């Protein structure tokens, strides 16, 4: 073999080896996953859910790119965000709330969706690319707790807004209360500014103010705290934020837990599960949140509350304004 041929052969072999190496490198390079979270409106509870989701997913894989977009309450912005995620060809969409999930599922049937804090009607078919976590706690459990704490209660005032999740819960709560011999004064608000006037219309014989997990009413919880204080009656709510804000006690779930449970579904998906195999889960761990300061002022025995929580197999957590969530 001549010297020239040897050099050509070496160059050829080195080139081939180089090409194989570069090809192998490009094959081993893992594509960075992107997750897009769509929040319909700015709200502390929704922020907590998103934080729970982000933290859990980052613990699983720190390289995952998580984009959070807020639609600021506008349907046009929400649609643009969903279309943008579609355009970016992200790996997973995470809409928070039912309306956002419906829009995401309607505009996109390709990218998997894990919905947080939403609940589909029983007679409504969940789209094939949607799994998720429902944050709904049946009204029955809340009324049972209320009756356990106040066995002699005859009437309470239920204040609610017209959100898509709340109305069926209101009807359930009324039925459950009536079944236990409790009358309900139903009071609906359209906007936050209605809350003050409505709170002034609470019946004199009402023994408790009750609110569901209702973002609009929760935003104005201070108005109800003041009214409850004036009337010397307790304020029962359905989430921890409103208890931190001055409510007496609540049966709810830790908001972060919704995000954590949703992130676990996302991890299963990234581990190779098919979105159609993933369920729409209910929250399992329920917590009684109470505000020690308010309870003391209303002479609500905290040790009794703890006993009731133990009997009903709920965890119990004291939260005040100094309490740091998460």
């Amino acid at each position: 073999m001549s010297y020239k041929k040897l050099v050509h052969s070496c160059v050829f072999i080195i080139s081939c080896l180089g090409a194989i190496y570069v090809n192998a490198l490009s094959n081993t390079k893992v594509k960075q996953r992107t997750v897009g979270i769509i929040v319909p409106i700015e709200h502390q509870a929704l922020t907590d859910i998103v934080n729970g989701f982000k933290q859990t997913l980052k613990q699983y894989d720190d390289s995952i790119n998580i984009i959070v977009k807020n639609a600021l309450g506008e349907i046009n912005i929400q649609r643009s965000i969903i279309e943008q995620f579609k355009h970016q060809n992200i790996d997973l969409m995470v809409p928070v709330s039912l309306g956002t999930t419906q829009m995401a599922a309607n505009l996109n049937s390709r990218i998997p969706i894990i919905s947080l804090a939403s609940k589909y009607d029983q007679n409504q078919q969940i789209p094939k690319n949607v799994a998720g976590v429902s944050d709904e706690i049946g009204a029955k459990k809340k009324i049972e707790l209320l009756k356990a704490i106040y066995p002699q209660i005859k009437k309470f005032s239920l204040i609610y807004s017209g959100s898509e999740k709340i109305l069926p819960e209101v009807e359930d709560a009324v039925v459950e209360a009536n079944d236990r011999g409790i009358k309900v004064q139903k009071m609906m608000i359209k906007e936050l500014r209605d809350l003050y006037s409505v709170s002034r219309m609470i019946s004199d014989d009402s023994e408790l103010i009750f609110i569901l997990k209702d973002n609009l009413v929760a935003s104005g919880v201070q108005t109800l705290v003041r009214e409850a204080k004036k009337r010397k009656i307790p304020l029962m709510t359905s989430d921890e934020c409103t208890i931190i804000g001055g409510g007496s006690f609540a049966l709810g779930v830790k908001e972060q837990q919704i995000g954590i449970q949703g992130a676990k579904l996302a991890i299963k998906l990234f581990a190779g599960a098919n979105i159609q195999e993933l369920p729409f889960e209910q929250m399992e761990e329920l917590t009684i949140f109470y505000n020690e300061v308010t309870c003391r002022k209303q002479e609500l025995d905290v040790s009794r509350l703890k006993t009731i929580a133990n009997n009903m197999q709920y965890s119990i957590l004291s939260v005040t304004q100094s309490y740091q969530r998460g």
Partner: protein
Amino acid sequence: MNIFYLALEQTIVFLPLVMGIYLSYKILQTTDLTVDGTFVLGAALYARSLSMGVEPLVAVLIALAGGFLGGVMVSLIQFKDKVNSLIASILALFILYSVNFQVMGRANISLQDNRTLIYLFGDQIILFMCLISIGLVVVILSSQLGLKLRGFGANKSLMQKITSNIEKFRMLGLGFSNMLAAFCGVLTAEVNGYADINMGFGMALTGIGSVVIGLDLIRRVYRSRKIFNVGSDILGCFLGGLTYFLSLNTLLRIGIEPINLKLVLGVILVMLLRGVGSSPLNKIGVNRE
């Protein structure tokens, strides 16, 4: 989807509402925020009708009739200018919130399992419906009725001397305006797949912004000597909507923080509106507001 096509698609869905606002704001020269409510009413009537098994085209007609009645209601509140138009529309919005609830029976109706227009005729039905609404506006404004509607907006005193009952023009104008808003609600529910009691938030203000910006843009381009031209005005409505959605999608695409989105979008719209203020047509008093 390409930003331009996305904005174009959103504008086609939104255009009936912009034209509805154009009828009330520019033609009748009245401020009507009722469209926030009739937009939802249209979507609500349509979704509820579908869920009850009504044929989609009949459901659309029911929604249009509902929107028209919403406009009639606000014109009756305003009757003979006894209640300020802004106050009247806020009152109408109040009433419509309860009406919408009664219509829907709940706060959210999904169209996912129903036979919708898109299910029956494909996506192009949205463009076809939009073209029908444009045709309707052109026919109305090119007719004698359109002339009288413009007369009502421009000079009520003169109209009173010409015809005995000018209130019917207010009623018809606001009726058509809100009917178009309801139609936009139908198209939005179709495209998004659901009707929701809170879906009307911010629609009127976005629509007014689109009308003002779009009409100024079109007058700058054409520099037409004609004071009124229905074709160019509708093109202006379209351009206004397109400008809004292009700005919105571009800002989102370049990664503006969501919390600052409305601030930046607001500044862009203010800059455009400042441009309207310096328009030569404004200086000679074409825009009477």
